């Protein structure tokens, strides 16, 4: 029996070898087929599957298939049955195995017979290592895979123009890919899932660019959308960091306060200890605020596409958060400096605090406005006209307050303001001064567009220059405020150089008389005309008559229009 089993072991080993061979090829076939499918899916942008991974997949499948094939169970009886079948032994071996210890009449003869016949059979003849259909299929699948990965991707069949366009797109794709990597490795993400999704979309966008699926316009639109998404994520990240910091600070303060036993006197000594500062530092690092890769995101991407306008938009909108963060950072810095100045720290503590201060300083610098902004502001403020305008605005503000308090302006005050206005007007008549002012304003607006100045700052500056959003002047420049339409029945005499006129007329039969006052004076805020109405009235009247005669005005309103202009003309004449 042992001899028979030993003989069968030879066949068993051979079976394992052949199975390993077959399993490896089947594995290669399956792996290559799967890789082809994944490459196709990648090509169709259904998922991301790098080309080199396909070869790795095929190789791993080959090895795994071989290992599985080798370690698949091979029973002695199965081998016996298989050998009987393949060698034409007419069930001698299997029967001998079954009847070995049965004590049957022919058991011994059966075993001897089986051994004799089995000895004449070579395992490799029964289980040859073939290169058949499976192997051919695997080779074909591998060839298809290699073709799909490399041949399709090369530039052999492209014209020079197409090659150049492809190279350009590849460059853009590389930029996008770099941004994606930064996004993927970014720490402290407020919404990791969203960032992953954005990274996937960016990668897909990169693929589309690489494969020329998008024309330039589509690419721009898509880039714009992705930049907006990135902007949102960036804001979320900052908000979260800020929130954490606030929580941390509040907690630290509370702890300190509790330590002080609620003694308000001791609150002035409240400082963040080393542990807290380290934790704060970590928080900042975790938040990614010191890196802010997303700020660069759309800039890089749009730059790659040749259009980086929207980058500044994103930066501008996140400025408010940066400002808040900067304030908190400054507070933390002050506390560190205070602690350092006390001098009762060990060398190690001092170094740690200095390091923290340095980190925070760097971070704060990033959050501050750029030098260009500061320079532009400085230039604007140093302009002579700007200073005079500021002085005038201040005087007008005082005058307004005085009037609101019920005290009339003195003649001296009115005279002084009038002189200053005329002087400023004269200066503004100078084209050079006007151009300098215009340039300064333009630069400010440009800075604002690029996000280096937030909306609030700009508004303040405009107000300072008497250019409030409603055209009536800001807080500082609001020397002239609504002393106009229908507020007072009598015309106001400002004793200016201009001619003051008033028109009286009936606005509505039911609502009674209205008064309209017009001050003919140099425009201070640019919202009121300096042209007398009687100069333009004839033109308007002519236009109105033409409209009435050409039936552009409905019949029932024609008389009203005529009466209105007649009254205006008459009123003017009366006055």
């Amino acid at each position: 029996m042992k001899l028979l089993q030993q003989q069968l072991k030879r066949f068993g080993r051979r079976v394992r070898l052949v199975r390993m061979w077959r399993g490896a090829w089947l594995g290669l076939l399956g792996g290559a087929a799967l890789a082809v499918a994944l490459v196709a899916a990648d090509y169709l942008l259904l998922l991301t599957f790098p080309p080199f991974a396909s070869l790795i997949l095929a190789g791993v499948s080959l090895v795994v298939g071989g290992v599985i094939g080798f370690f698949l169970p091979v029973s002695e009886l199965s081998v016996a049955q298989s050998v009987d079948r393949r060698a034409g032994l007419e069930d001698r071996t299997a029967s001998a195995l079954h009847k070995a210890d049965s004590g049957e009449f022919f058991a011994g003869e059966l075993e001897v017979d089986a051994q004799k016949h089995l000895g004449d059979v070579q395992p490799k003849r029964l289980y040859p290592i073939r290169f058949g259909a499976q192997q051919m299929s695997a080779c074909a699948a591998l060839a298809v895979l290699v073709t799909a990965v490399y041949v399709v991707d090369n530039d052999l069949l492209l014209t020079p123009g197409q090659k150049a366009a492809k190279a350009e797109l590849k460059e853009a794709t590389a930029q996008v890919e770099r941004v994606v990597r930064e996004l993927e490795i970014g720490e402290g993400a407020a919404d990791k899932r969203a960032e992953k999704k954005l990274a996937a979309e960016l990668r897909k966008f990169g693929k589309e660019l690489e494969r020329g699926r998008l024309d330039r316009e589509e690419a721009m639109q898509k880039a714009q959308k992705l930049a907006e998404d990135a902007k949102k994520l960036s804001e979320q990240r900052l908000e979260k960091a800020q929130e954490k910091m606030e929580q941390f600070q509040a907690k630290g303060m509370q702890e300190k306060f509790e330590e002080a036993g609620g003694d308000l006197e001791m609150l002035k000594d409240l400082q963040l200890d080393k542990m807290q500062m380290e934790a704060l530092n970590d928080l900042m690092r975790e938040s990614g605020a010191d890196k802010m890769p997303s700020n660069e995101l759309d800039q890089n991407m749009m730059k790659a596409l040749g259009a980086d306008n929207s980058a500044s938009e994103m930066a501008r909108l996140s400025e408010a958060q940066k400002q808040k963060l900067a304030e908190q950072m400054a507070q933390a810095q002050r506390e560190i400096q205070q602690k350092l100045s006390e001098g009762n720290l060990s060398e190690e503590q001092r170094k740690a605090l200095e390091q923290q201060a340095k980190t925070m300083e760097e971070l704060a610098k990033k959050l501050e406005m750029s030098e260009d902004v500061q320079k532009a502001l400085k230039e604007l403020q140093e302009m002579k006209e700007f200073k005079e305008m500021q002085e005038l605005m201040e005087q007008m503000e005082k005058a307004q307050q005085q009037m609101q308090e019920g005290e009339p302006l003195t003649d001296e005050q009115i005279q002084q303001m009038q002189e200053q206005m005329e002087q400023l007007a004269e200066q503004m008549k100078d084209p050079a001064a006007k151009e300098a002012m215009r340039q300064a304003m333009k630069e400010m607006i440009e800075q604002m567009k690029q996000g280096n100045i937030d909306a609030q700052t700009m508004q303040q500056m405009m107000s300072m220059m008497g250019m409030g959003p409603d055209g009536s002047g800001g807080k500082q420049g609001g020397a002239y405020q609504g002393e106009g339409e229908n507020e007072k029945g009598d015309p106001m005499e400002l004793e200016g150089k201009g001619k003051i006129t008033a028109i009286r007329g009936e606005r509505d039969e039911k609502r009674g008389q209205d008064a309209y006052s017009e001050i003919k004076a140099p425009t201070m805020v640019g919202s009121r005309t300096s042209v007398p109405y009687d100069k333009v009235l004839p033109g308007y009247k002519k236009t109105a008559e033409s409209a009435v005669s050409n039936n552009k005005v409905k019949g029932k309103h024609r008389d009203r229009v005529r009466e209105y202009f007649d009254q205006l003309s008459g009123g003017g004449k009366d006055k």
Partner: protein
Amino acid sequence: MNGLESAEWFRKTWTNLRAEIGKVVVGQEEVVEGVLVALAANGHVLLEGMPGLGKTLLIRTLAQAVDLDYSRIQFTPDMMPADVTGTNVFTQSGGFEFRRGPIFANFVLADEINRATPKTQSSLLEAMQERQVSIGGTPHQLVEPFMVMATQNPVEQEGTYPLPEAQLDRFFFKLIVPNPSKAVLAEVVNRTTQGEMATVSKVASADDLIQARRITREVSVSPEVLDYALSMIVASHPDSEKPSDIARKYVRYGSSPRGAQSIISAGKVYAMLEGRFNVSKENIQKAAKPVLRHRLILNYESEADGVTADQVVDGIVDAVNAGDKDPIKV
């Protein structure tokens, strides 16, 4: 004798028998082999073929080769059971004496068995199964070895009584005796029309036959081969758990358990004749037709489609082979 010697003896004996029969019976190798296999397996044979094909010659030659009694019964519609089994006869001495019928022989040729009435047929069939006959309430044991070879004519069916299925099941094999080829026919003519007829020598005894039957029963059958054989039997039933398609279509009733016994027994004899100590699946396949062809009761659809029992058996074998695969896939 040990196993090897027994096997050698069996093969030698059967080879001699075959050779001796071959002196007289020309051609018909399959039929001769089938008869010898049934003889070794202790079974009966139903031979179906046209008259004059040497059926009677075959059984007479076999009887001569083993030096055993031989009787021939020509069945007719007016034949009574007593004509087969024998009867009690009143003697001059004043008592009844049992007169043995032709059934009391080692080899019985029941010629054109389908011409006898069912009553007469059943008397023979009882003897085949029980190896005894009961006359006047007294059972009479038949001699051993006992073998019935019945013949029936596939034509001239008018006025015949086809054997009922239950009775057909008693036959171990049903062998089809084909018409001889031209060469065989020439040999037959030459041997029978010129010179002296060949004489048959005794090459085996009744004890040898009994010994041979004992030896064949010792042949090993592995579980796989047994499963294979039983799969065929099961597949022949249209309403079994795993019927073959052809059986489902053309078979009304499949093989009985006796068919399973017969196919294994036949496989054992085939294995011995081939010098093996185990039954192989090839042996089972070889035994399938003679064992199953008369055990399958075909339906009207088979008759309409002209499908024979042999074709159905082939279909069953193919179906079972299809399910019998190499356990190691490489």
